């Protein structure tokens, strides 16, 4: 069977993809109905199950060395909708499950329903929104239809925005509104692009569209506009420089577990779709100029984000700007990984590794910052001197995350940079190498700004020490970022499964 035919039929194990989406949706609905403390119980109970499903999917993709496919309702595309999991989807699913679970267990004391009440606003909202967000992420990673992905993206945004302003302070409301309005422009642009593609090829299915674009004697002019519009829309949601206006206030003011999920996963959701678009839907249109533009924006993000991170006075703002910088690295994938040379494959692996390791490292750092803020009542960097003495585990986790951002071994960040740099060398694209190295130096700078004074032995008044368990979660995330550096070759092979450039 041809690759296209394979992508249009359910294969064994495909039903798992449905479960991965339905489970959090059901959790969300049940949580809403059951209300109160049950919302938390349901959410926490489903997280391990979701993680299990994600792991089984990843294992299935790895064992078959082929994407899992599920045709919803038995209606094959173009009429119906398909779900597909390739290697990239699979690892993102697992990452999302891990980070969501970590944020969930971390959030328990923050979003517990007060004992004297049956139900309170923030806990109910948090637990339901968290599950909604998780469902949306899984849909984004598995969706095989551009319009279905639009709905998933909207779901993601609607779950993410209220999380930003759960505390109801005006500045968080303002940040949330800014985020929502800007993201909405992005959605509309995406939708417009999808319309143009449908108008040209009569389908919204990713595989069929790719086939249509590839087979067309001349590329329909609307395709160009669609590519630009959809990408720009997605970039707005990814907060790629210079479209990052909403990210720092939103991520820096949200509650810590929300910040962790937003920074680690939500921006990756739209990034994931940009990758889908350029590598799966329209690889033939990935001209040097277009990919160079994306790479240049990424470079701008690296430099701007890092320098701005160096200049922040608040820890969470620093981490938020660091997210802007780290997202920039992801976009170096585009000039480097477009193509079918072996080094393109390395760049692909590098980009994916960056997405994964940043997810773990950044989640860990945001949660660590949350613990610091809880213990001190503030997160002013200038007043963190000696925090390492008071909360050694937290600082250690923060530092490990920082190492991954700097790209020091052993960490996923190092592997990512190593692979990206190898690709720049073999592709002769030296400019990106310089940017990567500069970014590493600047990351060293902003991590140092926090860690070095924190190590000082000066006494510091800490309201309450964080619980062992929550520190353990933060540390576990940082260690996950670290362990990615030990990923066996088979793992890198998994990332290549279903990569369009190597599918015959």
């Amino acid at each position: 069977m041809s690759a296209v035919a394979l992508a249009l039929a359910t294969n064994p194990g495909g039903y798992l993809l449905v479960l991965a989406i339905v489970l959090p949706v059901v959790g969300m609905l049940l949580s809403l109905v059951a209300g109160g403390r049950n919302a938390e119980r349901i959410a926490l109970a489903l997280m391990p199950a979701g993680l299990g499903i994600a792991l089984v999917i990843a294992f299935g993709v790895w064992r078959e060395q082929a994407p899992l496919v599920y045709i919803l309702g038995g209606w094959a595309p173009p009429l119906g909708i398909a779900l597909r999991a390739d290697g990239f989807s699979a690892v993102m699913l697992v990452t999302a499950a891990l980070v969501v679970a970590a944020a969930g267990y971390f959030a328990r004391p923050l979003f517990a329903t007060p004992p004297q009440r049956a139900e309170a606003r923030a806990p109910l909202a948090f637990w339901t929104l968290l599950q909604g967000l998780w469902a949306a992420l899984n849909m984004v990673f598995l969706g095989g239809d551009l319009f279905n992905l639009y709905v998933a993206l909207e779901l993601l945004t609607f779950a993410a925005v209220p999380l930003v302003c759960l505390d109801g302070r005006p500045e968080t409301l303002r940040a949330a509104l800014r985020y929502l309005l800007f993201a909405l422009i992005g959605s509309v642009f995406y939708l417009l692009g999808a319309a143009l593609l449908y108008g040209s090829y009569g389908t919204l299915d990713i595989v069929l569209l790719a086939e249509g674009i590839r087979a067309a004697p001349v590329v329909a002019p609307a395709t160009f506009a669609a590519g630009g519009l959809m990408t720009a829309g997605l970039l707005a949601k990814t907060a790629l420089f210079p479209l990052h206006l909403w990210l720092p206030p939103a991520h820096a003011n949200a509650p810590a577990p929300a910040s962790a999920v937003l920074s680690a996963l939500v921006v990756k959701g739209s990034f994931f779709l940009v990758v889908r678009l350029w590598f799966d839907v329209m690889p033939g249109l990935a001209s040097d100029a277009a990919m160079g533009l994306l790479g240049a924006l990424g470079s701008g993000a690296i430099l701007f984000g890092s320098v701005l991170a160096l200049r922040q006075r608040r820890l969470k703002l620093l981490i938020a700007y660091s997210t802007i910088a780290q997202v920039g690295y992801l976009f170096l994938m585009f000039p480097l990984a477009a193509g079918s040379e072996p080094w393109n494959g390395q760049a692909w692996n590098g980009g994916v590794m960056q997405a994964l390791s940043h997810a773990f490292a950044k989640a860990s750092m945001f949660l660590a910052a949350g613990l610091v803020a809880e213990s001190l009542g503030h997160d002013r960097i200038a007043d963190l001197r000696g925090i390492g003495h008071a909360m050694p585990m937290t600082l250690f986790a923060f530092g490990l995350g920082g190492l991954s951002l700097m790209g020091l071994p052993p960490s996923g960040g190092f592997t990512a940079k190593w692979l990206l740099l190898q690709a720049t060398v073999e592709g002769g694209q030296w400019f990106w190498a310089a940017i990567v190295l500069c970014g590493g130096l600047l990351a060293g700078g902003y991590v140092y700004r926090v860690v070095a004074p924190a190590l000082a032995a000066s006494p510091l008044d800490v309201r309450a020490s964080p619980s062992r368990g929550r520190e353990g979660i933060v540390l576990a995330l940082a260690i996950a970022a670290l362990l990615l550096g030990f990923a066996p070759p088979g793992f890198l092979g998994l990332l290549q499964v279903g990569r369009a450039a190597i599918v015959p």
Partner: protein
Amino acid sequence: MTALLATGLLAPLVLLAACLRPAWRPAVPAWLAVAPLPALAAALMALENDPVAVELPWLRLALALDFPGAILLGVSALLWSAGGLYAAAFLKRTTATLRFVVCWLLTLSGSLGVFMADDLVGFYLLFALASLPAYGLIAHDDEPTAWRAGAIYTAFTVLSEAFLLMGFVLLAAGDPTGSLRIGDVMAALPQSPWLNGAVTLTAIGFVLKIGLVPVHGWMPLAYAAAPVPAAAVLSGAGVKAGVIGFLRFLPFDSAMPVAGELLAVLGFFSAFYGVAIGLLQSRPASVLAYSSISQMGVIAAVLGMGLAAGNDSAPIAGSLYAAHHVLAKGALFLAIGVIAMTTAPRTAPTLFLATLVALGLGGLPLTGGALAKLAIKEPLGNGLAGTLANLSAAATTLLMVHFLVRLARSAAHEPPTVIPQAFLLSWRLVALAALFVPWLLYLASSGTVQAVLAPGALWDAAWPVVIGAVLAPAWVRWGSHMPRIPAGDVMGTIERVFRSSYAIGVAMERADHMLRRWPAAACSLVAIAVVLSAATI
């Protein structure tokens, strides 16, 4: 052997894991001296037998020990062990012990591991481990000078890591098999299209680590700020991570005249520059730090000449010279600590031993230093390079006399509390090792006693020391009238230049402020859509 190497690498990390349990923490310092011993045993075994190479697939790490690696590992382990003894006693008199212990153990595992690493990534990891955690040792005193020293040290370290990363990537890219083993990579390097880039970037990375002029400024600041045991192990063993880097990653079997001579020139310049500025220092630790710059310069010169000539015996010579420096420099730093706790008349035995070790750095006959100097004679040859080396030995002697004078003056004034026996034991152990271990190494590297004791050889070793010794009284008499240069000399200027770059940050912040306004960002969004569409056509 695999087990021994692995234990050598992991022993410090096991101790580190023990720190996780608060109940065990107080017991950990006592084990600091033990942690390096497996590595020492591994080094001795490797010296006995042929070079070994093992893989630890579960750590994704390959380890190997050849002769240069083994001797550097051995002496470093010795110094770390003695230093651990000192540190354990030191920790009883200081605060923030946990931080010190953690940083010590991390640095230890990196510092020893880097001599064993046999693959690019592992080397990079261990090199980083040998460098970055040392921040905690340098800034241990928690005062502004220590913070500044730590900050500058970290900045240089991170910069060096960046150069190394790119250098290593180029090295790896040059090997078509995709192997990351250092042996394979270096074998493929001469044919690599990126030969020059790889060598240059890697060399810059290591130059930053060994502190050649003009990137030496961090060294005097760091060693002067660090507590005695930390300064001893960092100046002795820590900095050799850079030396082993040169040994591993310069292609000595293919001559690269330009690169080699460039390195040699830089090395010789550093050798004399270090002495010149060192003479203008008054703190003993700063003097020693400048001496380190000078000595690293000599090693760089040796390796540079070896690279220029394609001389593959240069690594062994360089490693012998470096091995002596490990012990001698470590010992002298420990001496500073001992003297600082001893009142004047009772300093004599310590000063005597220190004199032997210090002059050994200049090549005093029969000391370990003389053997070290003998070892580098061959790669340097008898021409200009050999003469310069001898002159630098004379200069070093002068500097060492200066050091001894400053050391003697730093003796305690009031009767101090009793000096811990561990301090004395540690210091004497390393000092004696500095005097005698090079003999063992020399003999192990197929040298003969006759060659050392031949009158000609004795004279060759003696005359630079004599010149230095003759000049010394004059310097002691009048040198104090010379202007003093702050430790770190050019560092002040570099910092000023760096500060002026803050303006860029301010400008970018302003730009960010503008870009993040709604109309600007929204216009950017539309513009990106338009430009990207156009770019795909």
